[in-house]
């Protein structure tokens, strides 16, 4: 993780979206992506990505949890006793995740049925805990919100990309819309491998390959 734990020196009047702050949002999108570079949060990336619709809901949920857990932990960062900080982080994350789950159950029951288990598993998503430990505990609230947004978006675009390929090859749809039928290709042969979790590994592997050959990133 390249993002620093220590607070960067801040000038007197810094713009709301200064260069330093923009980096919080843009870094995790590519150079420091939580999935492809840090290889965190893989389990949910594999599990929910068979179709794009639940993937989008999952992505929004993770963004919500990341932003607000970062904000809350950052607000409390000077009051949290160091010895129980992990428990405190867990409690906050678990509360937010339960909130998301309850809201989905009330207003998007179909999504709740498909995603329920995986929404619950956001609690153990390493990205969330990772950001709290590495960033929110040592940075101001606004910066933490931006950092949460950045990591959330970085996670989201990867799982949406994986879901796009898995859904189009696995079931011939995009967001549940039968693209191949619409193009007049009636008997598009779907690939069963893509709907199984193995498909996600393969697609993810290709994305990491393409990304690393572009950025030149090498594991040390």
């Amino acid at each position, binding site marked *: 993780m390249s993002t620093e734990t220590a607070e960067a020196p801040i000038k007197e009047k810094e713009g709301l979206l200064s260069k330093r702050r923009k980096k919080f949002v843009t870094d995790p999108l590519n150079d420091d992506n939580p999935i492809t570079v840090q290889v965190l949060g893989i389990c949910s990336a594999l599990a929910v990505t068979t179709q794009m619709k639940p993937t989008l809901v999952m992505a929004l949920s993770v963004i919500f949890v990341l932003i607000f857990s970062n904000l809350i932990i950052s607000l409390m960062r000077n009051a949290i006793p160091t010895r129980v900080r992990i428990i405190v982080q867990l409690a906050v994350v678990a509360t937010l995740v339960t909130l998301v789950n309850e809201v989905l159950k*009330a207003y998007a029951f179909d999504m709740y049925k498909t995603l329920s288990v995986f929404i619950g598993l956001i609690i153990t998503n390493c990205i969330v805990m990772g950001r709290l430990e590495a960033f929110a505990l040592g940075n101001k609230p606004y910066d933490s919100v931006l950092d949460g947004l950045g990591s959330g978006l970085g996670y989201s675009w990867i799982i949406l990309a994986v879901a796009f390929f898995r859904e189009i090859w696995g079931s011939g749809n995009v967001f549940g819309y039968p693209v191949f039928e619409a193009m007049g290709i009636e008997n598009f042969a779907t690939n069963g491998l893509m709907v199984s979790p193995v498909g996600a590994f393969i697609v993810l592997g290709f994305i990491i390959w393409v990304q690393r050959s572009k950025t030149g990133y090498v594991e040390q």
Partner: protein
Amino acid sequence: MQQSNSYIIIFSVILTIVLGGLLSGVSQVLGPAQKKAVDLDTKKQILGAIPTEKERLADMEPEAILERYSQVINSTVTDYQGNIVETDADGNPVVAENVEIEKNYKKPAEERLFPIFKYTADGNESYILPTFGAGLWDAIWGFVALAPDLETIQGVSFDHRGETPGLGARITSDDVQARYQGKEIYNNQGELISVTMVKGENTPETALGPHKVDGMAGATLTANGVNAMLQNYLSYYQSYFDKNVRNQAMSMNVETSKQ
């Protein structure tokens, strides 16, 4: 920063109270909406067992679905012996829609309650029967619509909790469920043999006959779960049909022959 033990304890207590209070507040506020969502979902699944209703469900607003449900569904609850159950042990009325099939599934079959949803609309009649069982990974359940002859399946709707997407989870897809339409659950000797989903896909209809449906490639274990579920639950409803439906039909026949 090293804090004292009492600080840690007080901090934890306050955090617990605040977060706990927040969650219970949310659950209070959202409770009614969630109950409505669950209720709507159950009624959608019940209506979804009838193919003509299922087609219309997709374009219907929630209120319209609830209204349609109250118009066409007449529900009763029966026990294992086929007696109608109207009140529970404490004397409270039993509502078929509120009978939790999963909770009942955990009891021995003799102690379970079995809701029956009678569908009447536009001259069509059918008995919609809830079923419950185990798939490959987790629970599966469904509703089977039986024609008034009590032999022919008019339609089914299945759902599951954790079957593999694209394999076992296909029991929720329309094309798999449509395979059950028109199948018969009794053989020529009048024995209940249910309907079995075979192993392997794309079996020609001629090879299947009236008691078998085409399978799902790669999901034979889920299919076995569906088969066991149907076999079990269809047999549980037989005593109800014997006591309340076939008997009445017979006594009516006797009366007409006397005249």
